[in-house]
């Protein structure tokens, strides 16, 4: 197993820069997930680590050794491709053996390795089939097997689950998690799906436009997003954002007024002293849909536009009076009709405060009805 470090890695295709100075460390045995919208550079970054692309600037260090000029073949890494990239003309066995033969491993050993991996992944009966005779999930397993059999320093996985149907994806996701635990392997995993990232990662790297937005454990990102982008990207359904106005600045908190005639006031803790927030500044407040509850007395007024009754929860699409959309997920079943006027209790939810540029100003995680105490959350 290996550790990996990236130092100010820049990648340009011609004049277009797709990565602007990436710094990152991946510890031995860790599962790090790169997540971000398409075109954010996450796949390019993975391919630079693999050695399939050359970094324009910066260093890639494997176990402390600079590997920029070492070819993909000699870095001792293995990759699982989005399309699996199984050699169509070779049987599963040959697919697994190809890499081992190339490193001149004795035949007997090759055979043992393949048997072992096939047992681990439960693909023994498939060894003599060709890739086209396999189902999607089986191909996926073989592709992973081809990586495992090489005993690489680091596993690189490029959206490995995106070609599977939803049901299979859940199954393979948990298999991957179990495999990671069992192999104790360093893995770098690329996905655009934040649920995959949340469930698999030891640490998540959120990328946008070739820059790292935030690095942290899943709950760190969930609870303390560095900016509005991360806040919106992590967590499902998406966080709601409401436009507000700073009504007053206290010592460690600001008061934000929202709603028609500033009827709703929220106190939000603010971080640091040089936040530079002045009264009357425009700010936006992030609230997760699951943390909003209904209130009978004067709450934040919204109109229910569309109601989805799922049985275990009720999802209400609402519109505030200034026209901004607000999604609410309520536990259990609620007799809400379309067009109903609702009052919302925002004060008891975890609130996140962002400036108009999306920078996080402050916020707090409240242990309310839907947020259970999390030990990691405060670290």
């Amino acid at each position: 197993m290996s550790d990996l470090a990236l130092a100010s890695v820049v990648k340009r295709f011609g004049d277009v820069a797709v990565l602007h100075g990436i710094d990152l460390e991946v510890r031995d045995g860790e599962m790090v997930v790169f997540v971000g919208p398409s075109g954010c550079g996450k796949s390019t970054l993975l391919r630079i680590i693999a050695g399939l692309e050359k970094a324009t600037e910066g260093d890639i260090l494997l176990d402390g050794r600079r590997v920029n000029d070492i070819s993909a073949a000699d870095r001792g890494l293995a990759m699982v491709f989005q399309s699996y990239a199984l050699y169509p003309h070779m049987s599963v066995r040959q697919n697994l053996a190809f890499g081992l033969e190339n490193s001149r491993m004795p035949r007997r050993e090759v055979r043992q390795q393949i048997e072992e991996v096939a047992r681990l992944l439960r693909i023994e009966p498939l060894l003599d089939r060709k890739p086209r005779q396999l189902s999607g999930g089986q191909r996926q397993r073989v592709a992973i097997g081809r990586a495992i059999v090489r005993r690489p320093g680091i596993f690189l996985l490029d959206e490995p689950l995106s070609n599977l149907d939803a049901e299979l994806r859940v199954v393979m996701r948990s298999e991957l998690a179990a495999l990671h635990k069992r192999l104790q392997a360093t893995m770098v995993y690329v996905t655009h799906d934040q649920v995959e990232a949340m469930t698999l990662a030891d640490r998540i790297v959120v990328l946008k436009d070739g820059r790292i937005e935030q690095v942290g454990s899943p709950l760190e990102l969930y609870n303390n997003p560095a900016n509005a982008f991360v806040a919106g990207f992590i967590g499902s359904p998406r966080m709601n954002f409401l436009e507000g106005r700073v009504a007053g600045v206290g010592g460690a908190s600001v008061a934000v007024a929202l709603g028609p005639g500033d009827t709703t006031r929220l106190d939000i803790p603010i971080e640091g002293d040089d936040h530079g927030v002045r009264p009357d500044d425009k700010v936006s407040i992030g609230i997760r849909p699951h943390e909003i509850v209904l209130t009978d007395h004067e709450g934040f007024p919204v109109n229910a536009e569309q109601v989805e009754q799922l049985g275990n929860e009720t999802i209400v699409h609402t519109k505030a009076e200034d026209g901004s959309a607000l999604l609410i997920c309520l536990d259990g079943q609620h007799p809400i009709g379309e067009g109903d006027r609702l009052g919302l209790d925002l004060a008891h939810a975890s609130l996140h405060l962002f400036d108009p540029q999306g920078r996080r100003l402050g916020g707090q995680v409240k242990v309310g009805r839907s947020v259970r105490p999390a030990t990691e959350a405060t670290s």
Partner: protein
Amino acid sequence: MTDETERPITSTPLASLRAAAFWPLRLVMNLIDRPLTWLQATFGQRAMIVFFLLPNMAIFGIFVMLPLVINVIYSFTGGSALFLDDRVGVGFEQYQTLFDCRDFTDPFSCRQDAFWAGVYNTLTFMLLQVPAVALTALVTALVLNREMRGRGFWRAIFFFPVLLSPVVVGLIWKWILERNGLLNALLNGLGLEGTVWLGDSFWAMFWAIFVSTWAHMGFYTLILLAGLQSIPRDLYEAADMDGTSRPRALLRITLPLLWPTMLVVLILALIRAVQIFDEVYVLTGGGPGTSTQMLVQYIYQTGFAALLRNLGLAAAASILMGLVLMVLTLLQLGIAARRSREVAG
């Protein structure tokens, strides 16, 4: 468990058989792999790109590009020597010899009457064979494009002569056109008088054109057929709904939409016609006299077959032919590019 581990990596019988068949190839390729891996490790991927391109480029360089240069140089030299060192520069003399004519419309007034005979014969051949081959291919393609049983069989029938070698084609027809041949026998049967077909300059040219049309028509038929099959069916269905008659649909829908393919066919046939040599050479030997002697035959005979070979003169003649072909090929590539743009856009 021991026999389990002894099992070869390829284990189905068919795969083992194939592995055995390719074993020598594998061995050779593996032997080359070592030095090439070293090459790649030492000089990087670029060296491998060069390695992959080198054989092809070398052959193109030595046998196409270098000859182009040599051709020009030789056309400015004279004498009968083969190697350049022994040849003397003569400037434009070879070209002057080719163009030394009192009257360009009459080959026999030229110093190189065989060259001008070749030019005029090739021109005659082009002007008649290209329309003939295009027209017969068009009719055949239209017929084969109909809904009918055994279309593959009929397509194969019309394509069959394309695969025959020019020598075989020439001999087949030479045999039929013999004085005692099949054609004269059939004519006799109809009460008509036969003749010595290849001994008459008009009929020799006629049969040269006929035979080469016979031999190549199937190729153009397939190209036109592919063009016809790319015309959407619903156009015809729409025309049918409008009560359009079949001949009218042919004139107003099929032919206009087929025109781009037809253009390609015409130019390909032209390029081929300029270079016509082998089947006519085998059929008539260029005779009677020089009446079916083509340009390429002139080059061949001047440069190689004649007792006193004149490589300089042959080179000059082939450069003139090359210029014509270059224009035609550029035209073809231009049309192909325009078509692919239309398809893409």
